[in-house]
């Protein structure tokens, strides 16, 4: 009897693929984790000789340290959190009406508006930040928290508008029309009918804007330096001389991103997810 080797071959190939994928995805991530707990790690040792959570404790402000680059990240954390919250509030206040208008009205200059909101995805954004820096230097906004917030709104607004307009488009107009036909005014119909229906999409969009702000690096680098030290910038400035410390911050940034994005990814179109960082 002749044995059929094909299925065995395919299975073996698939298992190799699985192991390889695990190594490629988790290899770099485990490097970050190992560095964050490495008390002593002299090469060529494959693993740290001594591990401890000392760097975590220093970063979180539980223990004080005099090591270079080891400052408490608690202030940077609260600064990033504050900037992200203000960014979400303002960006959504701008995005919700705009998204609604784009979804529900036929706008004569609509193509131009769409074009304006698509451009940042199509072209590199760095030259924008360079010229915003020049503008902000004249206005006295360079190196200030309000300046950084404006840049974060710019980065978040585009995604905010696209996600909210897609959300409003998915709500059948008949719902609002029904409310209007029994005498509700336009604002009442919007706040009582459309807004509650759109809530999950709007929430997902807010979370997305929040995460983009928390992780934003390039715009903050140009507009915020040298005075505004958000979490990503603290990570950058410590990465040169304190590997452990930088790894701790990287892991602290990584956790909310993975957690929140995992929660909202079902609601989002695949395209948006890539626009981060």
């Amino acid at each position, binding site marked *: 009897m002749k044995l059929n080797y094909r299925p065995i071959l395919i299975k073996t190939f698939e298992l190799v693929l699985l192991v390889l994928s695990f190594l490629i995805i988790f290899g770099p991530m485990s490097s970050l984790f190992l560095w964050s707990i490495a008390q002593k790690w002299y090469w060529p040792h494959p693993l740290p000789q001594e591990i401890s959570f000392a760097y975590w404790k220093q970063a979180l402000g539980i223990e004080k340290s005099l090591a270079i680059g080891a400052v408490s990240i608690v202030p940077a954390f609260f600064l990033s959190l504050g900037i992200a919250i203000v960014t979400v509030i303002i960006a959504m206040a701008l995005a919700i009406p705009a998204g609604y208008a784009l979804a529900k009205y036929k706008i004569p200059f609509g193509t131009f508006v769409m074009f304006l909101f698509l451009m940042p995805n199509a072209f590199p954004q760095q030259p924008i930040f360079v*010229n915003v820096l020049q503008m902000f230097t004249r206005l006295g906004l360079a190196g200030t928290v309000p300046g950084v917030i404006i840049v974060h709104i710019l980065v978040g607004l585009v995604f905010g508008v696209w996600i909210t307009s897609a959300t409003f488009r998915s709500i059948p107009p008949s719902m609002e029309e029904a409310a209007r036909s029994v005498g509700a005014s336009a604002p009442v119909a919007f706040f009582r009918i459309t807004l509650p229906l759109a809530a999950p999409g709007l929430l997902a969009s807010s979370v997305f804007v929040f995460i983009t702000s928390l992780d934003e690096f390039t715009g903050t680098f140009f507009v915020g330096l040298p005075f505004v030290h958000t979490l990503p910038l603290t990570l950058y400035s410590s990465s040169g001389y304190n590997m452990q410390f930088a790894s701790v911050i990287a892991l602290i940034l990584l956790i909310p991103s993975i957690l929140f994005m995992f929660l909202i990814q079902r609601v989002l179109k695949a395209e948006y997810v890539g626009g981060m960082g």
Partner: protein
Amino acid sequence: MQVSISATRKGLTVPSYIMLLAPAVTFMLLMYAYPFLASIVRSFLDKSGAFSFENYLKTIDLYTKDIAFTFTVTIFNTVCTAVLAILIAVYFRIRQNRITTILSAIYKLPLFIPFVVVAQMMNSFLAPHGLLNVALAQLGLIDLKQPLQLFNFAGLSFGFLWKQVPFAVLIMHGGFQMIDNSYIEAARSAGAGMGKVITRVLIPMNKSSILVSLVLVYSQIVGTFTLPYMLIGGKIPTTITVDIAHRVNYFRDFGVANALGVFSYLLVLLTAWYYLKTKLGETK
């Protein structure tokens, strides 16, 4: 009193959508359109504000190598992303078992990790004495006295692929899932092998999502600053984005920075045109 709906609507339509759009559009005009146009105009102005090609001459003199490097990195990684992502997405489409379930759960992870974290991760993982080199030495594949030097084209590409392949797979995956099984079965019963099914049925039917994902990957690689900045920095050759940062931070030379910016616009001109065309077509 009976109020006609159409009457109230008519009374509201004209001012309301303008009022709804005005704040966001004003913000975008001031903070996006103006800086965008300024970057082009200022690239043609010298220090005194007069029209000149000085910035371009300086850019070509100093940075031709870096512009070529940026272009090579982008093309290489877009092509690699295309091949890898299509293979993975097709594999997810034609095989459904425990292994694909596990894989499709973990492949998205890199997507959710911000570039600044990816940069730090690669910075420690790919270092001469980093985990990758140590692991390869343990396996006896390299000698640690001569570790792989990866803070260059190779390491940068590894970082880009690590982040961009999952992104492309995610977009393509949706498109492949929408192709009905009957097409595949029809092709198979007509005598096509699996290879033919993939190249003649699956890929052509999913052309639009493949193209959009690659266009986005391409323009993101051109515009990414964090990864090359933290991995390669000021070494030669480096990317346009790193040069722009150096021009601004060390020399306060906005003219050359803007000229470099215009070169980065030129690199994405084709993909930007395709992206805007398809997207504007979709929303109509």
